[in-house]
């Protein structure tokens, strides 16, 4: 007896009904996703796009956050002005009486500081994570002898990919911010830091081991993020390396290539697309994280960009830049989340969220596109 045989008509109806249920579930999900993007875009777009001129509100992208002043000169007509403009304006119009003056912190100006901060954090993080991650996976995959130990290490790394980001934040804070033995190039020695005595004098300063600056810094934040994303990168790289057919390596070695030549010419080029896709996905993840940078890198308000504030020359300057704390987009949004979202502040808040989401989505979209592109293109 065939167990599947039933009355054709009810069966068909059942079949159709369940197809509909599955379709509804799927499209509900899609609708939710699209709905959120749409909601954020429609709320945030107005401040970013202007109807005239360059069509983009460049001020929003090129000014630092500051306080917004909302006031009236005539009853009922609200005027919005950044604090600095407002002070100027008042100097120029000393006679005008200002009514209903209200101020909103962080709501005026733009989001240059957070944008730059996020970019610098991401770059720092990705440089470190890619160098360490790619070479580590090359070693694990190409050089290391296969065995129980390697398997255990590989498994350990894979498993760390799922550890919550806040735990990495905790760890990064303890290791990178509080330890006072990280090397840095400085002009002066901070003797309060115990390791500060171990400074190597250079021509115009010291290589001092006194930790990284003011508790939170680009170094600390970037490295915390790098540690967080490292397992993901290693796992992805290994996968790409493994996908390169063994024959490529054998052929190359058979022709007399050295190990490095083999890797450089016969393995890496074919693994690059995979690594690239993975690292762009990594950028998405890193740029969006708040918890790891809350304690390690981000501050709510900072008047200048890191490089404007750094002192010194050459490498010393570079080192000082990296020891600055920064504003960052996710942290800026976290600050907003704790401020009221009213008629007067909503535009800036939604605009910031929109810009942030767009940036991250562009990278995410790129990685999805690249993956599909390479999958269609690379076949062996």
């Amino acid at each position, binding site marked *: 007896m065939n167990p599947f045989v039933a009355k054709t008509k009810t069966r068909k109806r059942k079949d159709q009904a369940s*197809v509909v249920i599955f379709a509804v579930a799927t499209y509900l999900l899609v609708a939710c996703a699209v709905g959120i993007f749409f909601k954020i875009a429609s709320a945030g777009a107005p401040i970013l796009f202007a109807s005239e001129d360059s069509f983009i509100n460049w001020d929003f992208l090129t000014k630092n956050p500051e306080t917004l002043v909302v006031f009236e000169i005539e009853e009922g007509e609200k005027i919005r002005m950044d604090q600095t403009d407002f002070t100027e304006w008042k100097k120029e119009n000393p006679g005008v009486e200002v009514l209903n003056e209200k101020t909103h912190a962080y709501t005026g100006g733009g989001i240059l500081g957070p944008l730059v901060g996020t970019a610098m954090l991401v770059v720092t993080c990705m440089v470190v994570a890619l160098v360490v991650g790619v070479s580590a996976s090359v*070693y694990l995959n190409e050089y290391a002898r296969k065995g129980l130990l390697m398997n255990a*290490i590989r498994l350990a790394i894979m498993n760390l990919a799922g550890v919550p*980001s*806040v*735990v990495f934040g905790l760890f990064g804070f303890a290791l990178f911010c509080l330890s006072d033995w990280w090397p840095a190039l400085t002009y002066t020695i901070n003797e309060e830091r115990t390791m500060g005595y171990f400074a190597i004098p250079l021509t115009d300063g010291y290589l001092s081991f006194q930790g990284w600056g003011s508790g939170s810094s680009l170094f600390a934040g970037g490295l915390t993020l790098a540690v967080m994303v490292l397992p993901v990168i290693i796992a992805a790289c290994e996968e790409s390396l493994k996908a390169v057919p063994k024959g490529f390596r054998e052929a190359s070695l058979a022709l007399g290539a050295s190990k490095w030549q083999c890797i450089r010419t016969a393995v890496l080029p074919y693994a690059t697309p995979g690594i690239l896709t993975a690292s762009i996905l990594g950028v998405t993840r890193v740029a*969006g994280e708040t918890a790891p940078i809350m304690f390690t890198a981000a501050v709510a308000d900072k008047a200048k960009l890191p490089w404007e504030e750094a002192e010194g020359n050459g490498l010393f300057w570079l080192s000082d830049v990296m020891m600055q704390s920064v504003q960052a987009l996710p942290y800026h949004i976290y600050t907003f989340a704790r401020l009221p979202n009213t008629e007067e502040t909503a535009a800036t808040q939604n605009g910031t969220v929109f810009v942030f989401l767009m940036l*991250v989505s562009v*990278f995410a979209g790129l990685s999805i596109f690249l993956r599909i592109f390479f999958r269609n293109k690379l076949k062996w």
Partner: protein
Amino acid sequence: MAKHFQKKGRRILGWDLQDWIKGFFGTNATLSIVILLLICFYLIREAVMFFPSHHQGLTLYRQTGQEFVGHLIEEVDEHAKIVAMTDQAYYRELDEKFGNERGVSDSYEALLEPLEDAGEDFIDALDDEEEGAQEAWDTFATKTLSKVYKKEIDTFNRLDDDSWNALLASMKGWDPLEGDPPAFVEEARAKMKEGMASFELARAEVSAADDQLDSLRGKLVKIASVVREDAKAELTSAARKIALEQGIASTTDPDKKAELEEKLSEVKIMDSFPFAARSTPMAESKDAHKAAAADLKAKLTAGVAKLPAEFASQPAAELIERVRKKTPDVLEELDESVAEAARWRWDKPVGYFDSALQFFFGRDWVTNSSWHDFYGLLPLFTGSVLISCIALAIAVPFSVGAAIYVNRIATRLEQNIIKPVIEMVQAIPSVVLGIFGILVLGEGLREFSQVEALSWIPGFPMQERLNILNAGLLLALMAVPTIFTLCEDALNNVPRSFSEASLALGASRIQTVIKVILPTAISGIFAAILLGLGRVIGETMVVLLVAGNKIAMPDWGAGVGVVAQPTHTMTGIIAQEMGEVADGTLHWRALFLVGLVLFTISLCINVAAQRIIRRLSHL
């Protein structure tokens, strides 16, 4: 070509180029392993050091006698719950019977406010009996009163229009110097008082039942707090002395030096703190405690018995019913607590195992307290688990359903659209979802829950916009891409022949999916769900912003409605409290221990999922 390959590089330190390259890669591999080991090391080091300090803290809690007083505090709190219910019943009954009178009384207070505020400006003039002062005040008062509307003042709509007008009329002669309410208000108040007299009496008796216990508690809390402060000062005196000595050595300012030296002379170091002597007041209060408890028992029973039996208001009747039911339980617990307190001895050692258990199963997480810091993981753990359960309960059916649809039913075009869209969800940063949850979803959910027709749903209408459900919904969305993608992979891995065979036997597509493909892919789907759980339980920003941050065990009495309550989570507490704690303190270590717990949970989840996936790939 061959020659090129055979070229030998220069050797540096005995290594040729090949060795150096290998070395470089190897170093990086080692580095990444070292970093990963460091994470474990740091987490474990700080977390493990929590236990001895926690044990020390609990020992101090016992030695100072605070533990004994803790029982009294708990007992008084339990009594307060009975009082709370009685009070609620009282006011509900009052509202039902004398709503209008109460409205008069309250509205009078409300009307007084603008008059009083402005009255201050008139008082001087009235005081000096200036000419026209009285008229000016009268006009002002009349004008102010006429500008006030009933619905602004009487928010509950207790008052009927006649009483409102009568009240306004009676207020017109109100004198800011006098301050006594007009006769009309007095009458209403008297009427209320009279009508509720017997209830009021019983209520007062219930409420006053713990007077003796409460005053004993108050007395002992003060003593124990002092003992605690002294003991702490004593225990840290050695460190303080060293600190002051270092301070003297490092300062150059003579005044400052003298000041510090004086402080140093005040620091006394004893070999040990006389806990036995200092905790005597607590030990000697055991009998007084028993007596106070007996007093409470007698008075409470008497008071509860005197509570009225008939009520005009249904909720009041229910509440009093609950009071009657709960009182014996409370009294029973009281007996237990008294017995427990009687067993307290300052020198009974605290077990290490017990102190560890107190962390994992403690129900209180109280920090920065002037009494005692409690570190109990349970409410945080429960919060995390509850939110994750809701997130998965929503995410799993949707994402598995979507995976089946995309993998088996959808057309090529649909696949090419749906897959990237769902994957894009993964890119939404959690802080963005958090702010979305506060502003859009939270507000929307609350408004939706206030729709009259939906009030039968447990937990509706919601008071809080930041609650478990809100966080759970957002986390569900975050879990969808993970579960969906992995599920789809799992479905893809089912050999074609399976479905072909099933279809060939005449099964429909749905039958094939449910009876053939799902069972085959089930372990893959299970792995997907596990990884989704890992993602959800470790999420920080959404729960920090949206879960409502209430550190307490959920009130299970609400049934399914528990999802409308706020809660706190393990990840949230780390993010919230990390910024404030000083390196190396007990609180700091407690947070690291929470981190370690999270780390372990996510590791277990991952290992389990990986194992399942690996076993599948060996198929």
